[in-house]
C-alpha cells in the first residue's frame, strides 16, 4: 500500500519543473510589444553567451527581456524558498513572508533607503537590499516576540501579529512618501510589486543574497523536516532548536529581503507555491525545497509575462497579478486545507 503522492518520483518531478521553468523563461523573453519566436530566443541567447550578439533583437533580448525574466525568476524562487522555511518553522501552511509582515518590514527598510538615496547610484544598489534585510529581520523578531506566549507560538497569534505589524509598517511607509514627494511615483509603483525597472545591476544586487540564502536553506532540509515534528521532538532527535530557529529565520529574511529590495511587495507566491508542491510531492524538504524554488521562479516569470502583456502597452504591477490569483487561493486554504494539514 502506497500513498498516491509517492507515485511521483521527487527527482523526476524536480527535473520536470526545471524544464517547465526553462520553457517559461523562453516564453517570457519572447513575449512583449515585439514578440520573438522561441527558436530565435534560443539562438539569440546562444549568440549572446558566445559574445556574438548583434542587431536590435539581441539588444532587446539581452538588455531588456533577459534581465527582467532572470530577476522575476530570482524573486519568485526567493519568495517560495522563504515561504517553505516559515511554514516548516511554524508548522503552519498559512505562513508566508507577506502574511507574516516580513515583506512590509523589508519594504519599509527599502523605502527608507530609497528616500535617502535620490538617484540610481551605486550607493542605492548597496543600501536598498541591506536596509530591506535589516527591516525584514527586525520585523521577523518583532512578530515572533508578539505572537509568543510563555515560549509558545500559536498559529492564530502569529497571523494576527503579522497582520497588525504589516499594517503599521505599511502606514509608516506611506507616511514616508509624504515627505519624499518627488520620488513618490517610483516608490508607489515599487510598493505595488513590479519588475518594471529590472536591469542587470538589479540582478547583480540580489543574486548573491539569493544564492547564499538558497544554499543555506538547501543545506538545512533535514532539520526542516525534523522541525515539522515539533520543537520538542526535533530537540530530542538532535536539533539545537532555538539556534536552528534563529538561523532559519535569518535565512528566510535574507531571501525575503532579496525579493522585496528589487520587486517591492509581491504577495502569495511564498504561500501558494510551497503548498501546491507539498500537495504533489509530500512534505519532505529534500524535494519540497528545490521543487518550490523552481516552482516559485516559474510562477513569477509567468505572472510577470501576464502583467506585461495582458493590458499592453500598459503594464500592471506583477504583485497585482499574484494577488488576484493568490487571494482566492488563500481563502480556499483557510477554509479547507489549513485545518486538516
Amino acid at each position, binding site marked *: *500500500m502506497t*500513498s498516491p503522492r509517492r507515485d511521483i518520483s521527487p527527482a523526476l518531478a524536480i527535473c520536470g519543473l526545471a524544464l517547465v521553468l526553462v520553457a517559461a523563461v523562453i516564453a517570457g523573453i519572447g513575449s512583449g510589444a515585439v514578440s520573438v519566436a522561441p527558436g530565435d530566443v534560443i539562438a539569440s541567447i546562444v549568440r549572446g553567451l558566445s559574445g556574438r550578439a548583434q542587431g536590435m533583437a539581441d539588444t532587446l533580448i539581452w538588455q531588456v527581456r533577459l534581465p527582467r525574466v532572470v530577476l522575476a525568476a530570482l524573486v519568485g524562487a526567493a519568495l517560495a524558498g522563504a515561504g517553505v522555511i516559515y511554514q516548516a518553522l511554524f508548522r503552519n501552511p498559512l505562513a508566508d513572508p507577506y502574511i507574516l509582515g516580513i515583506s512590509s518590514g523589508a519594504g519599509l527598510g527599502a523605502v527608507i533607503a530609497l528616500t535617502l538615496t535620490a538617484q540610481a547610484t551605486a550607493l542605492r544598489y548597496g543600501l536598498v537590499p541591506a536596509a530591506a534585510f535589516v527591516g525584514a529581520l527586525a520585523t521577523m523578531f518583532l512578530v515572533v516576540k508578539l505572537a509568543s506566549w510563555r515560549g509558545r507560538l500559536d498559529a492564530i497569534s502569529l497571523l494576527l501579529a503579522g497582520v497588525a505589524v504589516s499594517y503599521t509598517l505599511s502606514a509608516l511607509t506611506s507616511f514616508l512618501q509624504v515627505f519624499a514627494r518627488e520620488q513618490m511615483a517610483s516608490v508607489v509603483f515599487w510598493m505595488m510589486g513590479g519588475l518594471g525597472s529590472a536591469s542587470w545591476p538589479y540582478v547583480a544586487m540580489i543574486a548573491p543574497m539569493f544564492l547564499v540564502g538558497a544554499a543555506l536553506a538547501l543545506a538545512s532540509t533535514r532539520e526542516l523536516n*525534523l522541525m515539522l515534528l515539533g520543537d520538542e*521532538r526535533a530537540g530530542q532527535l538532535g536539533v539545537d*532548536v532555538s539556534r536552528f530557529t534563529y538561523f532559519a529565520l535569518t535565512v528566510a529574511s535574507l531571501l525575503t529581503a532579496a525579493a522585496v529590495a528589487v520587486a517591492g511587495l509581491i504577495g502569495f507566491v511564498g504561500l501558494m507555491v510551497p503548498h501546491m508542491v507539498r500537495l504533489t510531492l509530500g*512534505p519532505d524538504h529534500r524535494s519540497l525545497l528545490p521543487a518550490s524554488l523552481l516552482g516559485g521562479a516559474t510562477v513569477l516569470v509567468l505572472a510577470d509575462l501576464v502583467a506585461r502583456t495582458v493590458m499592453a502597452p500598459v503594464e500592471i504591477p506583477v504583485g497585482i497579478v499574484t494577488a488576484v490569483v493568490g487571494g482566492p487561493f488563500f481563502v480556499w486554504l483557510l477554509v479547507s486545507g489549513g485545518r486538516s494539514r
Partner: protein
Amino acid sequence: MTSSLHFSRACIGYGAARIVEDATLVVAPGEVVGLVGPNGAGKSTLLRAITGEADLFAGDIDVAGTPIRQMTARERARVVGVVPQQVTVAFSFSAEAFVGMGRHPYLSRFGSPGEHDRAQVERAMRLTDTAHLAQRPVDALSGGDLQRLALAQALAQEPQVLLLDEPTSHLDLNHRLQVLDLVRDLASDGISVLAVFHDLDLAARYSDRVAVVSDGRVSAADSPERVIDADMLRRVFGVRAVVGIDPVTGTTAVTPVLRDGAVAAHRRGRLLVVGGSGVASPLLRQLVLDGWQVSAAALNAGDTDAHVAEALGVPFAHLAPFAPMDEDAAAEVRALAAGVDAIVVCDVPFGHGNVENLGASVGAGVPIVLVGGIEGRDYTGGRAEALWAAALNAGAVEVANADGVRAALDSLLDKPDAR
C-alpha cells in the same frame, strides 16, 4: 557496574520555577527504573531535564559518563532516545522516512543515509513490528502504530539510554504489553531505561526498581514491592488501596479502595461491623466514606474483608488464616463492641469458627442492625439462630441490604445533617 544515567543532587525546573529539588537517581545498563507519582509532581520534568527541555539549576546529570551540560543536541541524541507520551504528526511522511529521522544525529550536513543507517532503520522497524507500515503515510496511522513508530525512531538513534514518558497511555491492552515487553528485551541487551508510569501495576511489572516523585522530591529507587505499598499510596496519592500480589505475574498489584478526599468531612459515630468471606467489603468502604469511624470484628488473614479493612485503616481482631476464634479473639471483639455506638452484622455464614462475633455483638448492649435473615446461614446447629432471635428480641433492626443499613443507622443514631 557503571551507570548510564546518573542524576546527582539535580535541581530542575522551568525558568524561575523549581519543580524538582535535589534529585539523585542512578540507572544502570540493562536496568528499567520506573518513576511513579501524582500528576504534576515532576516525573516528566526529570526526563525533560535530560533532553534539555527543562533547566538544570544545580547538581549534575551524567549520561554515559558525560555531564549533559557539556553535550550538544547532536551528541546527546546519539546516546539518549525518547518516546513521548503522545505522537502527533500533521505531515504525511512515510513511516520509513519518519523512523529514518532518528538517524539525523549521525548524518553529516550533506551526507545521505548509508548502509548502516538503512540497516538500523530496518532493524528498529522489525523490532517494533512496524516493518509492514514502511510505505504508509504516518498521518493516516492509528495512535498505536504511531507510538510504536516513535519507539522505532528512538531505537534508530542507537541509544544507550531510553526515556519513556507514559509510553503506553494511549495504547490498547495488546500493544501496551507488546511495547513494554519490547522495552524489557531492549534492557536485557544493555540499554538503560527510565520510564514514567501512571499505571502502578505496569510499573511494578516492568521495572527493576521504582522511585516515587512527589512534592518536588525523588525517593530512593527500590524494588517495586518495597516501594509500592498501602502506606506510600495513602501518603503520596491520598488513596487507600489493597496492595497484593498479582496471582499470574507474581508482581505487585494495586486495587484502589477509596480516595481520602472522598470521605465525608462530617465525622459520625463509631461502628463495629461483623463480616468475613468478603461479604462486608463494599459496606465497610461505604461506611468509611459516609464518615463513620468503623472497626470490624474478627477476620481471618487472607480474607478479602481483612485486606479491605487494612486498606481502609479499619481496626479489627486478627485471626490466622482459616483459624477459628479462640477466647482471646472473642475478648478482643467484646472490647471493640463495648466502645461503639452501633453494631452492623453482615449476611456472613456463621460456623463454630466465627459465631462468637455474633455472641459478642448481642452481649454488647448497643443498637444492632442485622443484614438479611439468618435462614440457611447457621452452620452451628442452632446457636447462631438463637443469638439472632435474641438480638431481634432486644430491639435489633433487620434490613435487606447495604442501603437498608445506612437508612437504619440514620434513624437509630444521628442524621448526617442533625449535627
